[in-house]
């Protein structure tokens, strides 16, 4: 009798353990099959990969320049499908041309067939007004204005003989998340073919970011007249409207 009670207790205990463990592990996404999508950004000047510091480039107005720093935020990445588009949770990425590892990252997306990718070039307005953040959004990354709260969405620094400011510097710190000079750009890029995300498989998307687009497109911006902006405003907005066109899909692989 005693041993029966003991046995049934053990069985019940085991049931409890199973129930507790399984309920702990239950998560809305875990039932869904996911595949890995690696997204890589390739910074270029026209079609040539950007090299910091040592290579001289020429903008559409024939003005020569060097780039010493290029950093920008990509956030709210979404893979779009006719049904059940996938939004990467906590999607904030700081890309730094000086740190190649930052230019490529993987996301685990729900298995589905996707036809386009969209993202915000910049950090969405909500995260600009929500206090101290961490990770890619840590103010220690040097992409946060301390005197006028908000993220520097895009930062290009370098020099050019055409620049009339100190040390022939060029310095574009682009930001501002509200009002008429909101620089946030929602980018949507059609994929050249259907992206099949499948469980246990890896897909690759390569996106070109051509900084030659900075100077032209919506507004003609010459280094001679506009060598720098370091605050939200009209010039920041013009540059952002130009770089809206800098992103294109280079290639894509279903593996």
């Amino acid at each position: 009798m005693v041993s029966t009670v003991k046995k049934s207790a053990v069985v019940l205990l085991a049931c409890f353990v199973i129930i507790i463990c399984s309920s702990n592990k239950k998560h809305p996404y875990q039932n869904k099959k996911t595949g890995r999508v690696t997204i890589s950004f390739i910074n270029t000047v026209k079609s040539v990969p950007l090299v910091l510091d040592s290579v001289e480039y020429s903008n559409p107005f024939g003005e020569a320049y060097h780039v010493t720093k290029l950093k920008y935020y990509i956030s709210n990445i979404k893979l779009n499908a006719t049904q059940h588009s996938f939004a990467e949770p906590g999607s904030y990425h700081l890309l730094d041309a000086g740190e190649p590892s930052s230019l490529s990252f993987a996301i685990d997306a729900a298995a589905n067939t996707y036809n386009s990718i969209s993202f915000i070039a910049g950090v969405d307005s909500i995260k600009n007004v929500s206090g101290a953040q961490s990770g890619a959004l840590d103010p220690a990354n040097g992409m946060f204005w301390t005197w006028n709260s908000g993220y520097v969405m895009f930062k290009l620094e370098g020099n050019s003989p055409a620049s009339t400011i100190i040390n022939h510097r060029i310095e574009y710190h682009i930001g501002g998340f509200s009002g008429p000079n909101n620089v946030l750009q929602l980018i949507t890029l059609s994929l050249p073919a259907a992206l099949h995300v499948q469980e246990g498989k890896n897909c690759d998307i390569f996106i070109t970011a051509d900084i030659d687009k900075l100077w032209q497109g919506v507004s003609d911006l010459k280094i001679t007249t506009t060598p720098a902006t370091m605050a939200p405003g009209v010039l920041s907005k013009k540059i952002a409207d130009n770089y809206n066109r800098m992103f294109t899909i280079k290639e894509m692989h279903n593996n």
Partner: protein
Amino acid sequence: MVFVCSAFLFIAASKKETDPYKPTYLTLEIPKGWPKPATNIFANNPLTEQGFQLGKKLFYDGRLSKDGNFPCASCHQQFAAFATYDHDFSHGFNDKFTTRNAPPLFNLAWMPLLHWDGGINHIEVQPLAPLTAVNEMAENIDSVLKKLRKDTAYPKLFKAAFGTPLINSQRMLKALAQFTGSIISANSKYDKVLRGEATFTPAEQRGYTFFKAKCTGCHAEPLFTDNSFRNNGLDINPYLNDYGRMRITNNKSDSLKFKVPSLRNVALSFPYMHDGRFYSIGQAIDHYSKGINTNQPTLDSLLKKRITISNAEKNELTYFLITLTDTTLTKNPRFSLHQ
């Protein structure tokens, strides 16, 4: 039997976690009769005793500045209601001056935008401004964090406040916000009179009547500010060329506008105005009666005709303003370094 087994399991599970994270949660007390803050500054930063204490230690720690001499508290002194006592501009690293008068710190939970120009949109990111300004604490975030990580006490305090000993900028800033956001001033003589615990002298009462008639258009009770940005007709200081809010909004209509400061503890927070140009309450009142530059296009509409005030009214108004001094704030050991 089942109950016993599951109870045993529960105990085993809780014993497994060594040193569990059990902070003491606190609630920000809203003084009676006050409006609720428009947004909850602690919505994503649960207020705890451990977080508050860590924030206090950071607030008083000189290591947040480059040379160790300039903690937050060097410009925000408790005995001056957390303003800089008797200074138009505060002193920063390498014998530099700030370019604006340090505001007092209290009732920040009701302040949607910080700084004289409203450039700071969240209490958590405010410390980044003085911390990195070359004329203030002159530091950078990484360097401060390195100093804190080397300290023997901080990892334990961060663990108590946030669950793990990780020290990063987000936690440092959230802890500071827990301290500064908890500072409330609501126990001045004025507050006691409103609660029926004290009475105004006849002169103070007349001053209060004048105040309600002429001043609450901007300095609205009970916070004694409406947190708006207004041009009160000060001539521009040619050394500073400070156009206030326009620097933030790029909007010409914001030229020369500054945040309406709270008048709570005004007797302690002298000198007055964004550049501390007036050293006495009397000088500040004189500005509104005869100093306002009425030629400025963005001058506030309430001040176009200046404010008429007799000498007797000026004295009475001053007596009333002194009733806004809250010694419970200035002497509260909870906000002091050694408590």
